[in-house]
């Protein structure tokens, strides 16, 4: 089922996958990408090779993915997603702690640091979660991913995908530098995703 869904997603999105200065690997990583469509999760997840895909869990919003049995089935059975409650964030169990606990020392994550689907051509500022992930687990490779054209395949508020062609680009990993300030790091991460568009 997982393999079938991945193939279907690759067909509908016509995704061509590029790895630039980066290779698919089963080491622990955080893939962070721009977010424009509900298909983003599916397409990015599907574009990973199957052995990597089985170790990679998307982080997604609980309020969206727990609605209806299709979404719940997809999130739970297919993606094995980590659902984060956007409305109730507890002080002692921050989303970052939950994520790190869940992945242990084998799994990887897919995150969308913009925090919501963006309809503008330019990316929004990144939320700080990525910074805290990097700070608490400096050994994780942070891989920037640019998702191009998927917002035209399935724009916000539509339910019928149009089978256009899209492009997923994986870039060279980045790490948090020593004593790098939060704002500076998030700006650098955002730039790492943005520059992949033009490569």
């Amino acid at each position, binding site marked *: 089922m997982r393999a079938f869904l991945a193939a279907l997603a690759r067909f509908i999105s016509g995704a061509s996958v590029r790895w630039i200065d980066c290779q698919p690997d089963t080491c622990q990583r955080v893939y962070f990408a721009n977010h424009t469509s509900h298909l983003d999760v599916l397409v990015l997840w599907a574009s990973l090779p199957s052995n990597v895909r089985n170790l990679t869990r998307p982080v997604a919003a609980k309020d969206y993915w727990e609605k209806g049995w299709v979404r719940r089935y997809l999130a739970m059975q297919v993606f094995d997603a980590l659902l984060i409650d956007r409305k109730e964030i507890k002080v002692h169990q921050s989303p970052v702690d939950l994520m790190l606990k869940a992945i242990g020392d084998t799994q990887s994550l897919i995150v969308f640091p913009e925090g919501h689907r963006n309809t503008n051509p330019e990316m929004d500022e990144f939320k700080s979660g990525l910074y805290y992930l990097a700070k608490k687990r400096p050994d994780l490779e942070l891989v920037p991913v640019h998702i191009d054209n998927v917002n035209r395949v399935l724009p916000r508020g539509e339910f*019928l995908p149009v089978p256009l062609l899209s*492009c997923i680009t994986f870039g060279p990993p980045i790490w948090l530098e020593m004593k790098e300030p939060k704002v500076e790091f998030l700006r650098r991460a955002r730039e790492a995703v943005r520059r992949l568009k033009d490569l």
Partner: protein
Amino acid sequence: MNNLINVNPPITLLLISSVVVLLGMATAVGQLLKRQADSRFNPAVIDQFNLRVRAWWLMCSVLAVAFMLGQNATVFLFGCLSFWALREFITLTPTRLADHRPLAWVFLFTPIQYVLVGMAKYELYSIAIPVYAFLFIPILMAIAGDYKRYLERCAKIQTGLMICVYCLSYAPALLTLQVKAPAEPASLLLFFILVVTVGDALHYAAEQFVGRHIIAPAISANRTWEGFLISTGCATMFGAALWWATPFEVWQAAGMSFVISTMGFFGGLTMSAIKRDRGVQDYGTLVTGHGGVLDRIDSICFAAPVFFHLTRAMLE
């Protein structure tokens, strides 16, 4: 509906075997040129030639298999090509958010058109897109309610549908024509594709060697009138030499080949104009970097309807 094309009578088989022999020769020449270290040719050109030969082998084997599986398989194959070409075309066409639902319908016209072609309903498939899609899609776009550059967006979507789906569907439609005994529908389609492909190759070769009067410098720097005349002349002779596989006389086959290769040449030029407008080198740029499906089939798209109608008129 499952009327298999009979490959056993020798004409189509003979044609396929001559193609295999031709391709074998092309492969040999390509490999020979590659081995010679100090040849007069540019190595990049030779590599490109070898790549093209490989693409032709692939095309030839896919077509041969489709022919063996029958008419429906061939129609289906062209339907898939149309679908992919349309994808490439629309992907490179800027659309607005409001076009999303009309676009879903645009893609639906591809199976409709090919089912009609497969059923040989000429009076339906010849108007489905130019009349009904032409009326239906602007209505949907008006309902979507975005008037910004409305006419331009309509025109772009409809051009894509016409070129990638409607025009291309006339190639498999050749299979539904009633041809006289020695020739077969499959051999007619194969003749058409051969003349287009050889025409393409000759245009490409002529671009490398001859020509001074460039047709449209801003669109394509290497398409010249001299190249056009020489390559179209050669393609005409090539087509005439294949008259035995067609329902035509020698001079008719020559005339048809002239029309096919002329349309193919200017089809390529027209698609270059669209590409320049979009600022891309190839339609496949977004896909992997080498040419896309639409780059390979542009001449077929432009030549197919004209060849179909001429043949149909002549057979009646």
